[in-house]
């Protein structure tokens, strides 16, 4: 590849990322990436013969994420999340601190059960609903909203199935899901715990001490329970189907467990995820007579194309030799010392993620480390440090993850104004410490496991 091609590829990639983050006129992020990937393919930087390989790498991860989104659509349609929103207000018993803890736990659980982008899509409207009904001021709303978003996004690190970029990187490195958990679960949970603690310390004075006490009123006389809530719209008396709630939660958890239990037998993750989603759809159809129309319309099918386009672009960068720069300059530092491997790759991925989003960043980082000739646990620690940087370090700026950009978009549509400055003021204190603790924990944990 000549230097002219390298310059063209850098321009195509930069313009694609700028338009993806900017999204003029609210265009879907898939549009600029499709244009960028098409030009890359037509220019011959990525040969058409590689298309099937690229599709193979991204399709499984994309379908797994799509299946979790389908599940959340089913749950949303039966009032699952609305019920949770009202329930946590009642359970807070008038304490702003208790509400804060409940909201952060909810965001963590949602990412554990679904994925980071889905969690943001589910929890942000819930939090907005809750803080608006409780008549919080803009100053009081901010801690609940930003803490929820940061915890929801960071919570995708412990288990690879909660984040599309982790899944794609997993496939590139050839690591099994259970090996990932063994090495990543403990250090990333420590990082998330520290992040939660720091956020609580940061916002402790901004949290309202007392909030409205609002018990739920339940009418158990009907066959399905119905409820009303003093803060809810007075004309809306909702019925809740306990059987559906319990069965749906059971299937969601069973699907998560099956990801780990069945993938050891070589069953692809996407099959497991799609089976779980199919079960939920069938149960809802049998119970409530609701078909698949809403699932088809609301599922973001373009994720598959988006991930494919992004990988074509990154593959293009690799083909013109941009990865060689990383490989040549970094291999010497990280091939011998796991501490260096952890901190250098974690920091580089943090910088890359915040410059051009974590999905391409983790792809570039993962492709680079596979070419460094690292062996054994050095490869794994470098890869997992990549994931730390792209899941936790990427939260430093709103451009770091698509989940944060989605979060800003949802806030805007609900007329809640939070500036990038407000966001950065929090993250520039919290994220570097959380990332440092996570990378140090990763180094200590993996050294303890392997040495």
């Amino acid at each position: 590849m000549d230097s002219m091609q390298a310059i063209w590829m850098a321009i195509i990639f930069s313009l694609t990322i700028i338009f993806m983050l900017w999204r003029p006129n609210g265009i879907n992020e898939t549009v600029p990436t499709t244009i960028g990937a098409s030009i890359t393919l037509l220019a011959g930087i990525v040969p058409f013969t590689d298309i099937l390989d690229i599709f193979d790498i991204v399709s499984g991860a994309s379908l797994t994420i799509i299946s979790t989104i389908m599940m959340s659509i089913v749950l949303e349609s039966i009032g699952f999340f609305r019920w949770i929103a009202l329930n946590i207000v009642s359970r807070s018993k008038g304490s702003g601190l208790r509400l804060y803890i409940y909201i952060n736990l909810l965001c963590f659980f949602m990412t554990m059960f679904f994925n980071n982008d889905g969690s943001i899509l589910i929890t942000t409207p819930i939090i907005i609903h809750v803080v608006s009904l409780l008549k919080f001021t803009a100053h009081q709303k901010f801690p609940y909203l930003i803490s929820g978003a940061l915890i929801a996004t960071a919570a995708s690190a412990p288990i690879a199935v909660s984040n599309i970029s982790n899944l794609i990187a997993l496939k590139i490195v050839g690591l099994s899901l259970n090996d990932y958990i063994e090495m990543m679960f403990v250090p990333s949970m420590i990082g998330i715990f520290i992040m939660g603690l720091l956020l609580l310390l940061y916002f402790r004075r901004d949290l309202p001490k007392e909030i409205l006490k609002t018990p739920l009123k339940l009418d158990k006389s009907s066959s399905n329970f119905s409820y009303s809530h003093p803060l809810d719209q007075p004309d809306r008396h909702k019925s809740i189907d306990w059987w559906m709630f319990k069965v749906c939660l059971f299937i969601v958890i069973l699907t998560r467990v099956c990801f780990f239990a069945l993938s050891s037998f070589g069953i692809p993750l996407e099959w497991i995820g799609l089976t779980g989603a199919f079960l939920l759809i069938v149960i809802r159809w049998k119970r409530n007579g609701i078909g698949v129309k809403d699932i088809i319309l609301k599922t973001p099918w373009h994720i598959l194309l988006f991930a494919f386009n992004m990988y074509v672009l990154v593959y293009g960068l690799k083909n013109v030799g941009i990865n060689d720069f990383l490989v040549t300059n970094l291999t010497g530092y990280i091939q011998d010392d796991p501490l260096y491997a952890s901190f250098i790759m974690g920091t580089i991925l943090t910088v890359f993620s915040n410059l051009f989003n974590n999905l391409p960043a983790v792809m570039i980082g993962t492709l680079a480390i596979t070419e460094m000739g690292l062996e054994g646990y050095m490869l794994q620690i470098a890869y997992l440090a990549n994931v730390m940087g792209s899941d936790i370090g990427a939260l430093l700026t709103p451009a770091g993850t698509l989940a944060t950009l989605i979060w800003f978009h949802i806030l805007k549509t609900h007329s809640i104004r939070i500036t990038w400055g407000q966001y950065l003021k929090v993250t520039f204190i919290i994220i570097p410490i959380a990332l440092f603790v996570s990378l140090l924990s990763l180094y200590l944990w993996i050294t303890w496991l392997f040495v």
Partner: protein
Amino acid sequence: MEIFMFLYFSLIGTLFFHFFLKPPYYQESRKELFDLNAPRRELLTKSEAAKVNG
């Protein structure tokens, strides 16, 4: 590792059900029906109850 993840998701599933799904009505409704702390003298005697119940 599979067993660990089974236990982990069982635990967080149970916690999620308890803290986010289960409404706080169990205790309240029980209190309304049977107030165990109510003084003994406020309860009806057997003969009074028989009259009320016909």
